[in-house]
């Protein structure tokens, strides 16, 4: 009796609580709340930038070309990520694997371009020392890059899983969670880019 009911729960609803249909998976929801909290942190930084800009001794900057390229790279990676998700849902595993690899590569390219862009900024005289805008870049762009790196780790795990021949998983939740996060770090970058473009 008891065994039966438990089995029913365990094969039924995702988290096995009484067989109630859930609209959104708890992991996805947790991610959304987490995204809200990351947004608050960057909102804190950009508002600090606005306050600091009004203070004496401020040195501005102009946006290096490389950041346009990195923006293109991460926007492209969002498209490939979405295509990968679609491929996964239609069970085209080969295509999914390739698109995932491309997304990961674009993510790595983005971080490399960010580092190069940062050096270009340094070259243009925007430095950490002093009281100019320079220090914000290493903090804001650096933390954003860290969040992208987190996404790359998640992507790498997904690639590894997709390549593994011993296990086959058709569970869409981890792929969707990764995709949502990836789009988020993309949009976060677009926000930061537009913010600095408008304020430079």
């Amino acid at each position: 009796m008891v065994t039966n009911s438990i089995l029913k729960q365990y094969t039924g609803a995702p988290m096995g609580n009484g067989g109630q249909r859930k609209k959104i998976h708890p992991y996805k929801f947790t991610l959304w709340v987490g995204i809200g909290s990351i947004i608050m942190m960057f909102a804190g930084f950009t508002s600090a930038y606005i306050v600091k800009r009004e203070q004496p001794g401020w040195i501005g900057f102009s946006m290096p070309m490389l950041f346009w390229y990195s923006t293109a790279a991460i926007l492209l990676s969002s498209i490939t990520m979405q295509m990968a998700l679609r491929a996964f849902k239609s069970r085209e595993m080969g295509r999914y694997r390739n698109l995932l690899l491309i997304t990961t590569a674009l993510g790595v390219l983005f971080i490399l371009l960010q580092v190069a862009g940062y050096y270009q900024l340094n070259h243009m005289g925007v430095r950490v020392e002093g009281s100019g805008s320079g220090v914000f870049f290493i903090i804001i762009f650096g933390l954003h890059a860290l969040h992208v790196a987190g996404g790359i780790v998640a992507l790498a795990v997904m690639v590894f899983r997709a390549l593994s021949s011993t296990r086959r998983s058709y569970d869409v939740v981890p792929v969707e969670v990764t995709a949502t996060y990836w789009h988020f770090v993309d949009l976060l970058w677009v926000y930061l880019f537009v913010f600095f473009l408008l304020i430079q």
Partner: protein
Amino acid sequence: MSNEAILHEADVHTSHSNGHHDEHVHHHKETFLTKYVFSQDHKMIAKQFLITGIIWAFLGGMMSVLFRLQLGYPETTFPWLEDILGHWAKGGKIQPEFYYALVTMHGTVLVFFVLTAGLSGTFANFLIPLQIGARDMASPMLNMLSYWFFWLASIIMLSSLFVQTGPASGGWTSYPPLSALGGASEGSKAGVDLWIISMALFVVSSLLGGLNYISTILNMRTKGMSMTRVPLTIWALFFTAVLGVLSFPVLLSGFILLLFDRHAGTSFYLSDIYLASGEALPNEGGSAILFQHLFWFLGHPEVYIILLPAMGMVSEILSTNSRKPIFGYMAMVGSLFAIAILAFLVWAHHMFVTGLNPFLGSVFVLLTLLIAVPSAIKVFNWLTTLWRGNIRFTPGMMFSIGFVSLFISGGLTGIWLGNSSLDIHLHDTYFVIAHFHIVMGVASFFGMFAGIYHWFPKMYGRYMNNTMAYVHFWITMIGAYLIFWPMHYEGLAGMPRRYLDYSSWESFKQFAELNRFISTVAMIVFAVQLLFVFNFFYSIFKGRKVTSQNPWGSNTLEWTTPIRPGHGNWPGEIPEVHRWAYDYGKDGREFIPQTEPVGANESAH
């Protein structure tokens, strides 16, 4: 026996995403390490938070006894202090540097480690799955990490007490430049670095916990448990988590900038600084006020992060022990919501005297005073819940009533302090100390005590000793008023906070006797807390055993679990919910549990 094994299998599965099904075919065995240390059971994690919180409360309280010793007896020397504390109490007198370290650590420890982690960490973990009808949190793994990040933060904060230059001593708010310049004082050196690292880990812990609480409440309620049927504890813990998730990251960004100012030579918060030696620092263009904005954007929601869980638990305990439905359930939810919104819009009332634009100040005055409205609604609802109730004075109930009393007396002085013109006089005086200790500190402690006494039978399957509990209640209640009430007078007379010794000021000399009185009472109250700690640990092992499933005659779901629930909470299916949690004294029945279907001639709630 076989049932248990099967159940155990089931909850291992349910606590993972369904992508992992094939992994758990083997029989899962619990070891000491997985059961008590790296546990993923929300009930065990709650107990870990609680006991860590109790240890911190002991340390934080002990610190206050030490600095009260100095404030009450500024002339006396205590040679034994030097034996314990070494050069921090040279000649048996607490040294100024150490005094500042003590008040800083007392604030940090109690605000963050006890009343945030110890209070919402304990009761959010314990009550959310049990009261909404879930087997565990949305992610038990993140939940475990939340505790261990807190543990790591605790270890680092503790270790900062033992560095040569002492722990952070620039106040719990760690305002720059004191916190940003290592040369500013002994306590601004390594102590502040450890403080920032520890607090960053603490923020991570709070975020992981908060994410989990929110998604568990919104996604994992059992069948029939709509959001308008959840107990008020759940609503309170929900808003607490939302506040934490939105405000702690801003604090983290403030700390990151502070760390850069300390070590990378940047000038976020520093400008035009001259050292006592006459040397000028190169920093320019920084703004110390910027830190205050970033800090209080968390700092103000933080006081509600501390207070809301206590409010929720008190609502639940008052209703259960008055044997009456909570008065105005929706008004209670609405006022919690209003408080949560307003919490984000009032931070600048901590900064009235920083040179804030008076027009901006008046907006913040208005928003601050608006908080009185939802607070008053809550107070009226608690009082009307008690009104003509069939009150059972259990220790949990006593502390809940005590909470209401403290919330009223501490809240009223908030109306004074919320006025920017009165604040010019009262800012940084003992009036502020009295206000926030009563309304936020002691009141939240009362909520926590109420929660511990009320849910102890569910946590450990035993009761705490009632006699000790009543002694604990009365002495703490009377003591809290005796300690903090006189401070209002000192504050009105202009006595500033954070001073080591008032005896050299003609205006404050008159309070020497009063300070001694306060210190004496503080020591007595601290001793009574030790009685509570003894009662707590003694009762875990030797307390009277709980023999009935629902000892308080309560409606909520946690009392439908076995007396000592295993991981997964309910053997068999999770019960379905048919009504709200507050059907007390209805249709001639004392209480009707949430699991009972609504009768044919009964109106649904």
